[in-house]
């Protein structure tokens, strides 16, 4: 059963200058489409990963799923409830306490003036719950000591702070945790510890994760299903084994080839071509065609739809050709 259902999700940001400047300089309104027509489902007790370059819209999707940003179009249903359309206040409250988020920067995500005890208990205290001993219990569950509850965030290292964030996320006993690049601000040695902790907690608490990351290694080891985003659109979605052994979309393939590999020394790797285009003026047709080595005239004029193909989905006219060429290159994902 899926806990999160996202249908046609779209988010447009207004990035125009103030109206006075527009009126004087006769500029039109400028819209940035950060997320466009994204649909996916997350199975209960699974890890769904969203990957993509900076500016691909992955964090925007995460913020919309937890309800921090209102979608411009489409719908997000969590346990069958659309938070932005549900009128019943009690249902909204119940669903909200089922969703939590772990942020990227552990130095900004804890209020520096609050004691750890109050930080961890806040999701429960905000709704008038009983918080006695809660922080101490959770601190021990995330591998810190109960005596740390009386300290302030600045007394901890980055990894320890991220553990506190995990403890806070667990406080309201949520079902879904959105992790927005949870380890990208941490040392590599600490990354593994935090990821292992998250894996363990997923099993013992029966959690579902939406993992937002640009780190393919993390995603490969954690995720049950991976969605690849390019310029706000889902271009490919597959299970990690399929995706890493035989990427169908040329963009996925470029991402995988660009990832550093242990056995990559002395091997000539083609660097990624070009940069992610300006989302205010996206290219016509397939948004990836200016960087794509396989682009045809069709790619420049028509946008390929995301089509299902036996347990995986891909949005590319030449996906079949890619697949053929990949069979001859085993071990691509051998990280």
């Amino acid at each position, binding site marked *: 059963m899926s806990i999160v259902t996202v249908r046609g999700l779209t988010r447009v940001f207004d990035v125009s200058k103030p109206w006075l400047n527009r009126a004087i300089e006769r500029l039109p309104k400028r819209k940035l489409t950060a997320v466009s027509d994204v649909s996916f489902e997350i199975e209960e007790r699974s890890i769904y990963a969203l990957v993509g370059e900076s500016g691909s819209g992955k964090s925007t999707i995460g913020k919309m799923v937890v309800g921090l940003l209102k979608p411009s179009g489409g719908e997000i249903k969590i346990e069958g409830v659309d938070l932005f359309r549900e009128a019943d206040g009690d249902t909204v409250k119940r669903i909200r306490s089922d969703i939590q988020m772990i*942020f990227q920067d552990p130095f900004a995500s*804890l209020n520096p003036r609050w004691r750890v005890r109050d930080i961890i208990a806040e999701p429960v205290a905000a709704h008038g719950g009983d918080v006695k001993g809660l922080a101490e219990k959770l601190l021990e569950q995330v591998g810190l000591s*109960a005596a740390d509850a009386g300290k302030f965030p600045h007394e901890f290292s980055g990894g320890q702070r991220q553990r506190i964030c995990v403890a806070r996320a667990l406080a309201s006993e949520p079902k879904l945790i959105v992790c927005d690049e949870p380890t990208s601000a941490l040392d590599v040695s600490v990354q593994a510890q935090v990821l292992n902790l998250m894996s363990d907690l997923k099993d013992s608490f029966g959690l579902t994760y939406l993992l937002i990351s640009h780190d393919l290694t993390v995603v490969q080891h954690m995720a049950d299903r991976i969605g690849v985003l390019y310029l706000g659109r889902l271009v490919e979605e597959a299970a990690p084994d399929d995706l890493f052994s035989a990427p169908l979309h040329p963009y996925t393939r470029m991402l995988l080839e660009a990832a550093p590999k242990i056995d990559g020394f002395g091997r000539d790797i083609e660097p990624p071509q070009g940069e992610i285009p300006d989302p205010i003026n996206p290219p016509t047709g397939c948004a990836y065609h200016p960087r794509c080595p396989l682009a045809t005239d069709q790619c420049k004029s028509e946008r390929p739809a995301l089509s299902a193909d036996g347990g995986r989905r891909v949005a590319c006219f030449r996906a079949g050709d890619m697949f053929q060429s990949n069979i001859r290159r085993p071990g691509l994902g051998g990280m």
Partner: protein
Amino acid sequence: MTDSARQTQVTAPSSEPSRLKTVWESDFGYAFRRSPVALVSCLVVLFLVLSAVMAPWIAPHDPFNPVTLNLMNGFTPPSTPNAFTGDSFWLGTDDQGRDVFSTILFGMRISLFVGFSAVLFAMILGVTLGLIAGYAGGWIETLIMRVADVQLTFPAILVAMLIFGIAKGFTPVEYRDQMAIWVLILAIGLSDWVQFARVVRGATLVEKNKEYVQAARLIGRSGGAIMLRHILPNVLSPVLVIATISLALAIIAEATLSFLGVGAPPTQPSLGTLIRIGQGFLFSGEWWILLFPSVTLLSLALSVNLLGDWLRDALNPRLR
């Protein structure tokens, strides 16, 4: 460790030192102990504030009780026996025979009360509006900050005089003298909130995009709770600095208004009123009536200002 032992260790806050001790032993406390300017100005401020608060007990005369006044004592020079009555006053007397030392003590009371209250009023108003402007954004922010900008184009003393005049026009004649002090506080406070609002808005804009605020939003905390419990504690340190410097400015603003004759009434003379009375006698040789209140005002404003300057440097990590 047994479970119960762990429990007591967790609940007993005895290991956490008292807040005062923490502050004294912090970097901030160290910087304070090592700065002669901070120490001296802090001592001067403490001394002046204490003597103002204790005025009814330490003042040798009650300058507001006509029964104790003797007009024959008028214009007695400092520490010199009066030619007619033989009474001696440490800092001399004014034209009505009031002891200058006592009037200074009582005048400082008024000055400090008005200064503190005006800054408190300006602070509450400015911090509230700044928080709302920064957090809400949109047209609310535009409205608040444009009003602030417009007010900033006028000199503060002019704004205070305007507000003072309007408010005085609205108070019934028989209450004017009693209300004068409160009107003064209102006028100085309203002319001074802009600085607080601007600084708090700027700090709020930085804080509201931090992830801890988003974390509070996603669990369903209301905007008011987030502003009050999350953002406010994190924007307070610049407010403290501005409040200290504003205090010096408010005391001077009060003295200026009173000197111009629109502030504290003669029945409740502040330092400014005393200076206004004194300057009338400067050229006839009675210098003490002007000099001593002026010196008191100078040392009060100067030490508060130096303290504020030091505080700004000490709390600004970029200057370390």
